């Protein structure tokens, strides 16, 4: 009798966050959950990262806020959000119904604001981790600096780390000279994991009107257009640190996700692809399991960082 081969073990421990599989949804691309609840089974997600939360409600940018480019999407949404109180009251009861870790993406305009929003989440039941958005390219009042200035970056991660009991995941900006310096700084400041990349600063122009396509002029590029950039940065960062890495950038299917795992990511997050196909994350989970099976790998961790280079 041949033994029945066990299904591959997809579980991942992301710096203290126990996930049933390595596939998350990226901040800002899945709302707060209810938007997609009709269409997909949220319980199949490895983790859910909600849209960036600030202390106070924020309106965000004027329109147009997004523009489609070749194999990409340019966005300058401007971080509209219901604020800490609004989020906790409106969305946490919904999110607590699911057996999926909730990671809250947080941002501030000053180091103190980051620290304060982090502190407030200590008392919120059902939040499993904080992702620090230091890399949003859209806010003029300083966030761009947090992501690209190493000293500012350290100050934010330190301040958040000092105020929260939750696992902390700084999300790195791609437009830096040496990504390893930021990855190592995050680790040194006590981050439990890192995620990368955020969207890449970019510009689209309407030649006829000679005007920018976005009201904010510049935006962040996402989608398949940035995938090779993201893979290279994940590969570099993952080799520089020993904390887990979440790979993000242009993942549209299981093969894309597997490439990130091979490059050294312990988990992945699906962003823009959610807009195209809401079930991308679930299909990616199935595709990874099938791949591990086909390659005779027992655990998803056996694939991580296996680039033959």
């Amino acid at each position, binding site marked *: 009798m041949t033994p029945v081969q066990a299904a591959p073990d997809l579980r991942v421990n992301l710096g203290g966050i126990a996930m049933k599989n390595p596939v998350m949804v990226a901040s800002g691309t899945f709302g707060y959950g209810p938007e997609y609840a009709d269409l997909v089974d949220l319980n199949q997600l490895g983790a859910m990262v909600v849209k960036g939360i600030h202390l106070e409600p924020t309106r965000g940018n004027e329109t147009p806020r997004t523009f489609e480019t070749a194999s990409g*999407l340019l966005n300058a949404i401007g971080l509209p959000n219901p604020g800490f109180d609004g989020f906790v009251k409106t969305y946490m009861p919904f999110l607590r119904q699911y057996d999926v870790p909730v990671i809250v993406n947080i941002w501030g305009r000053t180091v103190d604001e980051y620290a304060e929003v982090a502190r407030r989440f200590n008392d919120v039941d059902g939040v499993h981790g904080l992702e620090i958005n230091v890399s949003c390219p859209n806010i003029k009042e300083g966030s761009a600096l947090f992501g690209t200035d190493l000293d500012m970056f350290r100050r934010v991660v330190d301040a958040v780390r000092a105020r929260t009991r939750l696992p902390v995941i700084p999300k790195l900006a791609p437009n830096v000279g040496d990504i390893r310096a930021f990855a190592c700084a995050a680790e040194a400041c006590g981050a439990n994991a890192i995620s990368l990349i955020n969207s890449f600063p970019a510009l689209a122009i309407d030649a006829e009107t000679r005007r920018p396509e976005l009201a904010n002029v510049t935006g962040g590029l996402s989608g398949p257009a940035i995938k090779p950039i993201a893979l290279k940065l994940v590969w570099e960062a993952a080799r520089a640190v020993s904390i887990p890495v979440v790979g993000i950038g242009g993942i549209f299917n299981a093969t894309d996700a597997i490439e990130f795992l091979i490059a050294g990511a312990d988990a992945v997050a699906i962003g823009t692809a959610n807009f195209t196909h809401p079930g991308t994350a679930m299909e990616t989970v199935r595709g990874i399991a099938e791949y591990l099976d086909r390659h005779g790998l027992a655990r998803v961790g056996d694939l991580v960082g296996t680039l033959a280079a």
Partner: protein
Amino acid sequence: MNRAETEAPPESPPLARRIVQEDGVVVEHENFQGDYRLLRLQAPAITPLVQPGQFLHLKAPHAAESLLRRPFSIYQAADGVVSILYKDIGRGTRAMTFLRPGETLNLLGPLGTGYPLEDRGTFPVLVAGGYGMAALYLLAKRHPNRGIAFFGGATPGDILCVPEFEALGWEVRVTTIDGGLGMQGKVTVAIDAWLAEIDETVRPEFYACGPNAMLKAVGDHALARDALAWLSMDRNMGCGVGACLTCVQKLHTEEGGWTWARVCREGPVFETRRILWDEEKAT
């Protein structure tokens, strides 16, 4: 005001609405009129859920570089088949022109909050430009009352579906900028003429879909007569389901300020009093 005799009872507004993702199969795709094409899709899960003024968000095949779906108002929905009328204006709609019967394309729908169907004892006035004639067809069919429809366009080729609306029991008046069909000028010229004709006891209620300037003009007419105007707003979209915050429109709040609303979820239809037009000063 005539009661519609032939139609099924109007459905209640989409309170407990549901969104479905479904592969639609092309059953018919042909030139409709002017620059517009008719695309009919077999979509048995979506069809019975459709309310007037809702839309489909579809992923055009043959456009690999184009990531986003495109929104289209639902023109007809019956017997498991939904249809849209669309115009080729860019890369997504260009790619759609190659669709052939038997092909599938992925649909999300029905999306958005459409037109109200309540009988308020008013006289329904439909106002359409561009694809607005398609967007208002289901309302014309399912509204408990019959009234008048105003269709405006640049040339006669822009005027769609007149016989279809007449067959449902609506009076249709047409305007074209070039004067090639109906009255010459903008649609408001015909509306003004009609408002001057009708007697004081007629209480109009407007339902409109078309270019922004037309919607604003309809809204202003409604305000001047203390009437309601339900306007379907057109905004570029990303996700179509409320997650990305691309499609937002400014609305007045009761406290005198303003807030964003998602055209794909709270809209596309808003009553004119709620809309904060771009040219108004937002504070």
